[in-house]
């Protein structure tokens, strides 16, 4: 009897344990996510732009954030700076070369809590055919239900890169090398 009870508890606890400890999987909602960048023009003003096509996923474990991960893919062709001529130039071989490098991708390698709801995410950014490790400071904005009852969560992150590190070296004297990127993600639990 005792052996049977122990066996039963052992058998039941395994799936329960995996349910308790697994990260929740969220697909990024492209409509409620944004990727915005700013870069200097002629070293005298900041120019802002955005990418309109973002997909990816977030695996978030609130109890063990170190087990969390994030993957984001952005279509480089979706660059939008509110000027069609400038967008055409940005998509050309002078800068993003979107026909040759249609996707930029970030895949996290580690997530470290740095405060309440704050994290340092280290991962690989692949841009313009070059992959480099970057770190970004991210904040968990919140989690909750949407109007249809689905679970959602939101993150806000910031990182800086030098475009020359990604082999984009044209016009460095007129368009800045330092690029600051703000990424805001909202995920839908699956």
């Amino acid at each position, binding site marked *: 009897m005792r052996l049977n009870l122990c066996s039963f508890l052992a058998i039941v606890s395994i799936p329960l344990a995996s349910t308790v400890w697994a990260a929740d999987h969220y697909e990024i909602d492209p409509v409620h996510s944004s990727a915005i960048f700013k870069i200097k023009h002629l070293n005298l003003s900041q120019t802002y732009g955005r990418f309109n096509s973002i997909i990816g996923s977030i695996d978030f474990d609130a109890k063990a954030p170190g087990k969390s991960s994030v993957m984001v893919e952005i279509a480089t062709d979706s660059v939008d700076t509110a000027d069609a001529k400038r967008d*055409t130039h940005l998509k050309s071989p002078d800068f993003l070369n979107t026909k040759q490098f249609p996707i930029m991708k970030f895949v996290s390698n580690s997530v470290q809590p740095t405060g309440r709801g704050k994290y340092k995410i280290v991962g690989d950014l692949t841009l313009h055919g070059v992959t480099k490790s970057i770190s970004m400071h991210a904040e968990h904005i919140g989690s909750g239900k949407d109007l249809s009852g689905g679970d959602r969560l939101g993150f806000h992150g910031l990182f800086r890169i030098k475009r020359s590190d990604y082999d984009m*070296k044209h016009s460095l004297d007129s368009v800045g090398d330092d690029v600051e990127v703000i990424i805001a993600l909202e995920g839908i639990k699956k």
Partner: protein
Amino acid sequence: MPTMSLLFYGLILPGIVAGVFTWIGRRFRRSAAASAGKGIGFALLAGYVGLVDWPAWPPNEATQWLVLIAPLLGGVVGLSAWWSHRPVLRWGLRFITTAVLLFLLLGPMREYHWTSTQGVVWMVALGAVVLWLWRSTETLTQRCRSVGLVMALLSVAIFSAIALAASGSILLGQMAGMLAAGLGSTLIFSAGALGQTVRSGAATVTVILLGAVIGLGYFYSALPASSALLLVAAMCTPWVVEQARFETLDGAWRMLFQVSAAAAPALFAAGLAFWLTMSSHSSSYY
């Protein structure tokens, strides 16, 4: 000042490099073969390094492959001309060079944008165009008066630079400008021996490299198909004019006709690129 830097690396340095190679070819006749052609290739590399940076190794993108191949092309073209009595070797060399060039420059199109069938069709069609341009230009350098041929190609290169810059890639426009500067410098430093210089590959190398830059503008930038076709057609006009055999025209008029026949479609291509860009994007961006 950025403008002086653009002027120096985009025009003056390529001109100096091509001029030095041309002068060496004239001074040391044994190394004349392919010297001017190599000079055009090195002019493109030097201008690119000055304006951007040394290409990555292995090259990260098609423009980097092109500027690294450019200096080698001079030697290949020279070898092809040297094998004039060995047609099998000559055509084999042309075929392999063309295949390698297209394979490297159009890799991203095959990977991301074309189906297998589209890839095969494009590679075969473009390969045929490159081989025809190569063969016809080499034939022309043996037959026709060189000044007219060089001036015609110079006008096409200049208008190509304008068309490419207007279509969204200043870099590709600058690369066409480097080729124009290199060819123009070759013309100047060849004074009195232009035929030898042109026969040593300057014209052929320019045609292949300019065709490649125009192709990069069409596939990877926003150069309209109509402009690209007109620019390639402009490069074919010296051959067409030579077939017409205007023997009744004397030297100056003949040259004027050769240059006009090439410049007209090239000018139209540049104008078309400007108009199509302006009509769809009206801004003061540049």
